């Protein structure tokens, strides 16, 4: 490890450094890491908090929304004074106040087919904190093409799902080849969401992201974790790589061109 920690860093990260599983090498690794967080909302807020606190050296944040007062019940990096501000700018200020070791790279735009691969390319980990199926399928497909791991999390009212998509493991489409038709599953704005829920699920995603960056522990790969806040239960279900998966199966895609991300995002066989 070429990077050596200065006295302030030895202090700041001391609880990491004394862990055998992290140590100065692991902390150095985090400081040299580049993570992309897609969405600075309910899930993105705790992810950004913990990655920044952990000293992940570069954090890219993609979001095209502005902070609304109705976000503040769960999006804990944004404050009342940030209402009306772009979420990426509010997030940047939060991180800069927390940890000067972190470089924040903001992308005030929507992840879309033309820019997805470019945004994901070369990242050490991508954390999918988006709030819609379209972005989730774009992230999955682009990450697979760029061989980038994804810490996936998604929420619905009182329930969460989390899984980690490693380049060599099954992808999101192995489990869900296509999305439900738009309008089938209602979104947070119309259903409501328990404010703490994305905190729990986002913290699981942040945990997975840090493990991926440290290359330590057993990732949540090939396993979908179900969290039910009301019943306070966690269940994991294993899933395997699907040989018929349109993205990573035997007849894998080589490009995102030609995939229609407007409906169910189906990939038609040639």
């Amino acid at each position, binding site marked *: 490890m070429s990077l050596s920690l200065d006295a302030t860093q030895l202090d700041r990260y001391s609880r990491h450094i004394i862990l055998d599983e992290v140590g100065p090498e692991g902390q150095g690794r985090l400081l040299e890491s580049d993570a992309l967080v897609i*969405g600075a*909302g*309910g*899930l*993105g807020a705790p992810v950004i908090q913990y990655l920044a606190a952990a000293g992940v050296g570069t954090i890219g944040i993609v979001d095209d929304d502005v902070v609304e007062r109705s976000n503040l019940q769960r999006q804990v990096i944004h404050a009342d004074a940030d209402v009306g501000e772009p979420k990426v700018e509010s997030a940047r200020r939060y991180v800069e106040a927390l940890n000067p070791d972190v470089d924040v790279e903001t992308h005030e735009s929507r992840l879309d087919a033309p820019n997805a691969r470019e945004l994901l390319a070369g990242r050490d980990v991508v954390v999918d*904190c*988006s*709030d*819609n*199926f379209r972005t*989730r399928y774009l992230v999955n497909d682009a990450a697979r093409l760029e061989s980038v791991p994804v810490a996936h*999390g*998604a*929420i*619905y*009212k009182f*329930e*969460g*799902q989390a899984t980690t998509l490693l380049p060599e493991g099954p992808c999101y489409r192995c*489990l*869900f*080849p*296509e*999305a*439900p038709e738009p309008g*089938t*599953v*209602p*979104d*947070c704005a119309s259903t409501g*969401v328990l404010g703490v829920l*994305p905190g729990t699920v986002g913290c699981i995603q942040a945990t997975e992201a840090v493990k991926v960056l440290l290359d330590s522990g057993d990732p949540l790969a090939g396993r979908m974790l*179900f969290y039910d806040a009301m*019943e306070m239960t966690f*269940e994991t*279900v*294993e*899933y*395997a790589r*699907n040989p018929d998966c349109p993205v990573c199966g035997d007849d894998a895609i080589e490009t995102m061109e030609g995939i229609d991300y407007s409906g*169910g995002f189906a990939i038609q066989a040639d």
Partner: protein
Amino acid sequence: MEWKLFADLAELAGDRTVPVAADPGDTVGDALDALLADRPDLRDRVLEDGDLADHINLLRNGQNVIHQDGLATELEAGDELALFPPVSGG
């Protein structure tokens, strides 16, 4: 036999768990038919052209039945069945 339902499927069904009359020797498909007969609001949400929709996963004892015999998989005593959809909120 009992079904466990996740996310909006539980809401459409009105319950997170739904017992159905299906016995060892019946198939997973029989148990699904019994569920949909009992909770008809689920039918259009989980079926597509008469088959299970691509984005709905059907688990028997925590294993996806596509790795078994699909809807023709035979049930055994004590089996746990579950249906889950993807969710997208963030």
